């Protein structure tokens, strides 16, 4: 398959998002499939932003492991990522401001310095951010993409600012394109452009759209990364779609308003991340007790506490399973990709109505914020809207309407408030069929037993309705990779890579986490030769859940908890180690040592130095082997000192300057 990965790195405020977006739209409109991932920080200006856009003629399922073309918007990016560019690739940078030392990139990689100032001079007054557009133009040429398509995308992007701005942007891009054409040869990509225009969409957008298409009428939220873009999409389209979108004072209000709206009969949803979900949890139990249909989306980010707000993790499964006190029925689902996010939102609203309970959707930063290309008809508008058993009429002589009638299915047909002759109270105290409290004056152990059984029984029906997990890939395999949620695509790719290396691998993936298909899962797992869990967390929360539901312990784990999502090679390498019987090394790798050095430089030494050579030394500076990292001046390349980092602990033991290091 023909594919290429572009990386763009810079600081927040460099206009990297727009640049990436323009590129992605251009490639997407040419008919290529894309998957992008933006590694960013909780900062509006500064920091290091690292965007990768992978594209191919066939569907790509992750941002991959490769880098073919780098656009560096600052010096940091050149130093940290130029070396990752593979032979045959190129490094694009503004040569007015940045220098690319030959030690920073591999041979057979083409350096492409762009004299931006000179190129822009004929175009009159331009904005600093337009250096990106110059580079984009050159990238389009080097990758063999269609300049006219980029011009069209730029026109769409800037049309609201007027034709003059559009023209200027196109001219700037053209200058970059022409310069590259004059000085360099293309990197040799021969594309078959289908020119089929497919949507390029994030998980949050898909989930918001899916909810609205399935009749969500009330959405409440409090801003929190990485859930905020659901709020943004919802509110931007609220008037056209006829939904009420309410930003509240806190997540407690968010959840309780959603419960109120759901109870009153509107399809109701809210979203947050783990910290906000912690505040919502009492209301989750409330929805369980008063049988209010509500959908709670919690988009996981690195935790605990404030954690790493702009980084991904799958470590809130325990929280979702344990949200709120007491036993009550809840459904928990974790969609795997953008398309599934769309249908899961609709499915969640249906299940919430049908079984009158809270439904929790566990998403994560990777799924919520990465955009990917999907097929044009992947998201269908004609969704099933199933409101469950509703009582629309209750004749006066019919006796008392029992809101919480004890039924075989556990589902009590619901009269929406306002339905004549059905007046009732929904109490968070436990109650009988009519909603009369059994907590204060009229306590009754048998009534409590039956009402609890009635509520919990609803999950039996739900489990029957939900599709059980299935093996994906070859039936006969030596290794079965077990995952959940957003990891499906990357695991799928890792399994393919392992198979191509002669290790028969398939995958077992879980979307429905509660109620759980214990019987079906156990049957499959018992037939597997070696099972390896793959999760983005430290403790293997899903593996533990699986064990508690089935009694089955996975043989081994591939875990990641550094904030970045899995890349296929990471999984492949660890699986191969497991196959070889090698135990997991937690030592600081060379690449990590370099990043630790950058962290120290940024926080203590300013921007005047960079890491150069690195080697492991034994016992000299600490009671463990250490990385001795030589730092050199960015300008002259002369040594400024050594940074000593523990190979086991990662502790920064010492900064040993040669002389005084200047700060800028």
């Amino acid at each position, binding site marked *: 398959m023909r594919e290429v990965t572009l990386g763009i790195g810079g600081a927040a405020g460099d206009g990297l998002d727009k640049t990436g977006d323009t590129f992605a739209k251009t490639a*997407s*409109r040419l008919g290529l499939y894309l998957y992008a991932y933006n590694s960013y920080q909780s900062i509006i200006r500064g920091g290091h932003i690292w965007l990768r856009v992978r594209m191919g003629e066939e569907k790509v399922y992750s941002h991959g492991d490769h880098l073919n073309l780098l656009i560096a918007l600052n010096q940091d990016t050149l130093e940290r990522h130029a070396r990752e560019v593979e032979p045959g690739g190129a490094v694009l940078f503004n040569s007015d401001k940045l220098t690319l030392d030959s030690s920073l990139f591999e041979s057979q990689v083409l350096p492409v310095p762009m004299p931006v100032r000179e190129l822009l001079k004929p175009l009159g007054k331009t904005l600093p951010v337009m250096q990106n557009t110059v580079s984009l133009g050159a990238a389009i040429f080097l990758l063999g993409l269609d300049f006219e398509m980029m011009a069209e995308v730029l026109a769409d992007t800037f049309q609201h600012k007027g034709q003059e701005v559009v023209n200027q942007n196109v001219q700037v891009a053209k200058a970059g394109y022409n310069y590259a054409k004059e000085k360099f040869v293309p990197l040799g990509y021969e594309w078959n452009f289908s020119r089929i*225009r497919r*949507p*390029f969409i994030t998980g949050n*957008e898909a989930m918001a*759209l899916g909810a609205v*298409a*399935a*009749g969500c*009428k*009330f959405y409440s939220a409090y801003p929190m990364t990485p859930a905020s873009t659901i709020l943004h999409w919802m509110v931007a*389209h*609220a*008037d056209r*779609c*006829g939904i*009420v979108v*309410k930003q*509240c*004072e806190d997540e*407690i*209000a968010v959840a*309780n*308003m*959603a*419960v*109120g*709206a*759901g*109870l*009153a*009969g*509107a399809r*109701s949803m809210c979203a947050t991340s783990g910290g906000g979900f912690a505040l919502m949890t*009492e*209301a989750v139990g*409330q929805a369980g007790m*008063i049988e209010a249909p509500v959908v709670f989306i919690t988009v996981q980010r690195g935790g605990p506490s404030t954690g790493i707000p702009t980084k991904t993790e799958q470590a809130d499964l325990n929280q979702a399973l344990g949200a709120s006190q007491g036993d009550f029925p809840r459904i928990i689902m974790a969609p795997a990709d953008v398309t599934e996010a769309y249908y899961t939102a609709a499915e969640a609203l249906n299940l919430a109505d049908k079984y009158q309970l809270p439904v929790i959707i566990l998403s994560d930063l990777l799924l919520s914020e990465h955009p990917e290309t999907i097929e044009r008809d992947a*998201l269908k*508008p*004609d969704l099933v*809207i199933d409101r469950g058993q509703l009582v629309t009429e209750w004749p006066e002589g019919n006796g008392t309407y029992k809101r919480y009638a004890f039924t075989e299915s556990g589902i009590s047909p619901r009269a*929406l*408030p*306002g*339905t*004549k*002759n059905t*007046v*009732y*109270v*929904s*109490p*968070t*105290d436990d109650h009988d069929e009519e909603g*009369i*409290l059994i907590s*204060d*004056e009229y306590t009754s152990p048998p009534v409590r037993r039956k009402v609890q059984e009635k509520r919990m029984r609803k999950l039996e029906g739900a489990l029957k309705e939900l599709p059980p997990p299935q093996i994906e890939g070859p039936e006969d395999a030596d290794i079965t990779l077990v995952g959940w949620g957003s990891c499906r695509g990357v695991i799928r790719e890792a399994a393919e890579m392992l198979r191509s290396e002669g290790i028969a691998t398939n995958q077992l993936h879980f979307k429905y986490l509660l109620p759980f298909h214990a019987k079906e899962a156990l049957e499959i797992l018992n037939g597997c030769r070696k099972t390896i869990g793959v999760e983005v967390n430290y403790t293997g929360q899903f593996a533990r859940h699986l064990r508690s539901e089935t009694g089955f312990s996975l043989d081994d784990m591939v875990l990641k908890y550094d904030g970045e999502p899995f890349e296929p090679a990471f999984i492949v390498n660890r699986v191969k180690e497991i196959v070889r019987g090698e135990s997991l090394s937690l030592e600081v790798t060379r690449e990590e040592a370099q990043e630790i050095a950058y962290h120290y430089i940024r926080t203590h030494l300013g921007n005047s130095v960079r890491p150069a050579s690195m080697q492991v030394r034994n016992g000299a500076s600490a009671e463990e082997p250490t990385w001795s990292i030589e730092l050199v001046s960015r300008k002259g390349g002369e040594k400024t000192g050594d940074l000593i980092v523990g190979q086991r602990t990662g502790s920064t033991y010492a900064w040993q300057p040669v002389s005084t290091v200047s700060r800028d």
Partner: protein
Amino acid sequence: MEMTISLPISTYESIIDPDWCPGCGDFGVLRGVKMAAGKLGIKPEELFTVSGIGCSSNLPGYIHAYGVHSLHGRAVAVASGIKFANQDMNVVITGGDGDGYGIGLGHFVHAMRRNLDLTYIVMNNQIYGLTTGQASPTTMKEVRTKSTPRGNAEMPLNPIALAIVSGATYVSRAFSGEPRHMADVIAGGIAHKGFALVDVFSPCVTYNKINTYPWFKKRVYKLEDDPDYDATDHQGALTRAYEWGDRIPLGLFYREEQPTYEESEPAMKEGPLVHQKLGLEKELFDDLMEEFV
């Protein structure tokens, strides 16, 4: 204007009798809510009472109307959600001072500046009754309770002043010992378009031996009896809100006409959300998808 046909108080008779202590001020409030609803001709299926947790929050169980007996402190948020979903409902929140002015204070303040058309009746007994007599946010300074054996060291919260400065558009106070006046004040709050606070002195006969019926009876007077009082004067209202001691005002402190939040919400102009068609027309859906291409 539509003619109001008042309904008898028996319309709202619940099959459950209140489990409040004999003599509790909340009996009077229950009667006051029923009288107000009857006076306004609100049918049971058009009335939604929402409470939190506490003695007073049991009220929805004792009135024949829709109700939610929600979580401690969350009644205002739940009620807001109900109002968003179905603006045809008369949503009346009934809770206590611990529930509304303590654990739920954040929602209370924000609901006032939001000005949804809600009526909030706070049965203020200046004590936590259900948990057997701890200090509440409105317990007076130096009063001894189970949790303040040396006397309460904190200033009591002033709900009337707080409401006036927070943007409530109907701010009032009533007293369980004046049932007819209370019914009028509550009816005024329900009829008012916007957020209405009715703070009610509802004595706890079991745990508050200071702020008793006789204590209030000696002190309260009605603002309506003062011909010079102007309930549209913001500063004047604030001044009266601070009046406490020998004379304590009851009645309507402050009122202003402001657009409600509902009126600013385009989706709600098409009628209650609960009655609207669900899903998207194909044409609109296609337009939305086009934004991603």
